[in-house]
């Protein structure tokens, strides 16, 4: 089979041991000997690590010394190292697309039990590559400019960090937040572990910086509706919900809230996790950014009956002179153009009422940890005073770990933060109330800088630790000491006894789980989720903030449970990845686009309706179909349908696919 210039293919095959990852299962010398017998194979070599510099050097030298014009590396998945070896091929002096990768690690050595069968399978895959590569041609990749603007979805600590990093680097950032204020979960916390520094003291300045940054356009109370385009050139539609308060006019003075016809707050405050109350017009919390009031149409009398005296509006107009309240505000659709997207949509906490044994929702003094965060918060509904719902101070408090986590009935994973925040809450409760505090744990997990030391500190503070999975929280009491209290029943697995611990307050350390709409969101952005529902990173170790969709990055707990330091680090990493993408200014598109041979096209129209990107149109004068290269994303749907074989897909030509199939089936 002659190459384009009539030169015969001269193939080099390089089989990687990958340490023992491949070599430990596949008989590499045998595979190499086999490769030497294949047609047009000029040289076949093995090497411990092909991706290392000396490994790549082998390729470059062979291209130069042996005139190798087709390169096959049999190693790992092309998703990992295709780029590496294409580059080596290029540096050796050949077109990078005269390269093909045979995946004998993920698809062979790691999944095959029997070494002999693994070796046979590896041979087949290499033979297929040899057959396939005869049909490779030199290709040019196309460069398209990258829009340097960035969209960040989610205004928690991850989104805030990424936004500030990028904005400080001079990039225009759109930060979209669903709630009426940024801040996310972190804004609800009082203290952070293990240093016990005040969460709002470290977060608020960052929130303000976001608001004031000339490069950041903050879009709160908004959701992403549609995402179109591809890396470098996304078009995103954002729906901005009406807050019935004109953002630019509101100064966050609370006069409207004070003048609401409801004299006292009546409805559970979302920000306070229902521990505190709010009015229909409210500012979620004093440090909110933007500090703008919002009206909840579900509870506002004007929206329910249309017969409210609208004192809030009147006050804003007359007392403040801003006239910021607008009951006719409609939702708004914004369209923004960006080159990269960072998803930082966070997590939700486990719904504790799913475990009725723990009595959440039935016993008023059973709280979730997030509710307690608001309760201990000095700017929370009780001003930081830890009291029961009836106003009493608890004398003893039980903290139940792993609620919903490490439990095959619910979420199998460890939520990573609960041990530490439970310790933090134990410390705060003990410090402020002097109550006896009991921690019920399965295992204590405190890996992290200063974490184990914090645990040690708590042990000395007189907090009780009882090792055992709590069976139930019950108001079934059997002695006067228990009367009127909640009893935690647990098998203390260190002494092998079932214990009943009476307490006044129970804190359920609820785990972290993917947001309920994570599935919807991942479809919107065309990325994957792990089986558990966390956004899937491109590689768990080497590409932890990238996704399989180029230009879409992930940061924070939407990728998996993590604490604030890890979240911030990951947000920084995502920002770094974005910078390396947009600062280059262009991206190279994989040249796997479809190409129409106008000499063969009969103009039958079959392909036109199939293209998902409307890249194919009909040329009336030539009576043929034509492809707009810039729009083609290289799926090959049209190629699979063309009845005239007039369309081919570069890198995935029929000859290539069929030669590969043939090669795979040659080894007996």
């Amino acid at each position, binding site marked *: *089979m002659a190459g384009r210039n009539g030169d*015969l*293919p*001269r193939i080099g095959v390089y089989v990687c041991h990958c340490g023992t990852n491949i070599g430990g299962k596949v008989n590499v010398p045998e595979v190499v000997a086999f490769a030497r*017998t294949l*047609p*047009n*194979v*000029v*040289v076949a070599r093995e090497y411990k690590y092909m991706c290392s510099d000396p490994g790549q050097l082998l390729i470059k030298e062979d291209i130069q010394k*042996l005139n190798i014009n087709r390169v096959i590396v049999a190693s790992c998945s092309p998703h990992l190292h295709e780029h590496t070896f294409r580059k080596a091929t290029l540096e050796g002096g050949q077109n990078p697309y005269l390269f093909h990768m045979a995946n004998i690690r993920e698809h062979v050595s790691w999944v095959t039990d029997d070494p002999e069968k693994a070796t046979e399978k590896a041979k087949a895959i290499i033979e297929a590559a*040899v*057959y396939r590569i*005869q*049909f490779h041609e030199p290709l040019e990749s196309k460069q398209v400019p990258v829009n340097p603007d960035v969209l960040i979805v989610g205004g928690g600590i991850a989104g805030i960090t990424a936004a500030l990093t990028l904005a400080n680097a001079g990039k225009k950032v759109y930060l979209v937040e669903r709630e009426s204020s940024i801040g996310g979960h972190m804004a609800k916390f009082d203290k952070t572990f293990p240093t016990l520094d005040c969460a709002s003291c470290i977060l608020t300045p960052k929130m303000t910086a976001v608001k004031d940054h000339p490069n950041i356009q903050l879009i709160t109370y908004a959701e992403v509706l549609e995402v179109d385009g591809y890396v470098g050139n996304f078009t995103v539609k954002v729906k901005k919900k009406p807050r019935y308060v004109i953002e630019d006019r509101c100064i966050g003075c609370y006069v409207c809230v004070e003048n609401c016809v409801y004299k006292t707050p009546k409805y559970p405050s979302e920000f306070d996790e229902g521990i505190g109350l709010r009015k229909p017009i409210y500012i979620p919390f004093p440090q909110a950014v933007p500090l703008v009031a919002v009206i909840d149409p579900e509870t506002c009398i004007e929206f329910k009956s249309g017969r409210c005296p609208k004192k809030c509006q009147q006050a804003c107009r007359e007392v403040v002179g801003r006239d910021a309240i607008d009951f006719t505000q409609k939702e708004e659709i914004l369209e923004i153009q960006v080159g990269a997207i960072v998803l930082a949509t966070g997590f939700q906490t486990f719904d504790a009422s799913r475990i009725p044994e723990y009595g959440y929702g039935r016993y008023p003094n059973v709280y979730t940890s997030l509710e307690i965060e608001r309760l201990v918060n000095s700017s929370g509904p009780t001003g930081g005073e830890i009291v029961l719902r009836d106003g009493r101070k608890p004398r003893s408090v039980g903290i139940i770990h792993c609620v919903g986590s490490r439990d095959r009935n619910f979420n199998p994973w460890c939520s990573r933060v609960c041990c530490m925040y439970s310790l933090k809450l134990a410390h705060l409760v003990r410090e402020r109330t002097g109550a006896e505090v009991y921690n019920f744990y399965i295992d204590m997990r405190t890996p992290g800088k200063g974490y184990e030391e914090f645990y040690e500190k708590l042990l000395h503070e007189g907090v009780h630790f009882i090792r055992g999975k709590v069976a139930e929280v019950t108001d079934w009491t059997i002695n006067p000491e228990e009367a009127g209290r909640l009893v935690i029943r647990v098998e203390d697995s260190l002494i092998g006894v079932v214990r009943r611990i009476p307490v006044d307050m129970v804190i359920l350390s609820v785990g972290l789980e993917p947001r309920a709409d994570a599935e919807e969101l991942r479809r919107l952005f065309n990325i994957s989720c792990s089986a558990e529902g966390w956004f899937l990173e491109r590689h768990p170790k080497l590409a932890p903030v990238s996704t399989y969709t180029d230009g879409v990055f992930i940061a924070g707990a939407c990728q998996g449970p993590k604490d604030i330091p890890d979240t911030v680090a990951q947000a920084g990493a995502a920002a770094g990845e974005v910078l390396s993408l947009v600062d280059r200014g262009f991206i190279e598109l994989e040249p796997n686009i479809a190409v129409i041979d106008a*000499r*063969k*096209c*009969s*103009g*039958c*129209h*079959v*392909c*036109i*309706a*199939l293209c998902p990107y409307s890249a*194919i*149109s*009909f040329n009336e004068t030539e*009576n043929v179909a034509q492809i707009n290269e810039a729009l083609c994303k290289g799926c090959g*749907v049209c190629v*699979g*349908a*063309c*009845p*005239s*074989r007039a369309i081919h897909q570069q890198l995935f030509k*029929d*000859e290539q696919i*069929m*030669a590969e199939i*043939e090669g795979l089936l040659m080894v007996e």
Partner: protein
Amino acid sequence: MAKKKVGFYWCASCGGCEEAVVDLAEDLLAALEQIEIVFWPVAMDFKREDVEKMADGEIFATFINGAVRLSEQEEIVHLLRRKSQVIVAFGACSHMGGIPGLANGVQREQILDYYYHSGPTVETNGSVEPDPGITKKEHGFDLPEFYRHVRALDQVIDVDYYIPGCAPPPAIVKGALAQLLAEEPPPPGTVLASSHALCHECELNETKPAEGIRIKEFKRPHQVEKIDPNTCLLVQGLVCLGPVTRGGCGALCVKGRMPCTGCFGPLDGVQDFGAAALSFVASIIDSNDPHEIERILDEGIPDPLGTFYLYSLPKSLLFQKLLGRNGKKVAESRPRKEKVEA
């Protein structure tokens, strides 16, 4: 200049291809200025012995129509191959197996049983099946063997050119003759018709919607109350194989308001006509719901094999599997086996 010797032969076919030669009318007379017919059993009294007596390669070109199913056909085409410089597969049957090729869809035993025993018009008492062995013994002459399968001509002998069609229209035959007799004949293997699909020359192509074709319902011609002669038949939901079929006929069937059934066969590069036809037809179904797709197929394409392989069953990849790697056909994509020295 001496006239070039030309032969015609008829294997398993309906005889329409012989008609196609006669349909050349005056053009045939004109052709006879340049050629001399030395073998044409249907029209002239030549016998097998006459061919056997010829020197190898004495005939310039032999046009063979029909598929190969009998041992006699196989023997004669091998003989003609030896005696001819050029072999032309003439018509759909020798090109791809044609309508007789559909017989590969049933087993030989079933065919014999139907013809000699169970068919509704067959007297069953004492009927026998043709048996090559017995006839030789009792009557002193050969009865050809009825092979298990129908084969296209190039699955039996090497073929140089193909004239497609069922039957080839006169214009195609005339054009093909001219090309063969030209100073520089086309490269071997050429199908002597258009290199574009039929749509390219079909007058109705311009009636296709600019946004492409989406079909919610396929219909068979008899199910359509009135076929609109001015709109693409495919767009009307008729399974017209124009997009996948080699052109050159001038879209005769479509002009007669019948959808193309594919007698000119596939375009260059298509390995399996049926697969290509199937793929484009399935692709334009306008539904993503498996149940709806199944319904559309149930109603519109009850017989995919008959629809997509009407003329090309013996040339299908699946049938080719039977002929094996050592048969006539060697896959074009097979790379060279020879070793290059380092």
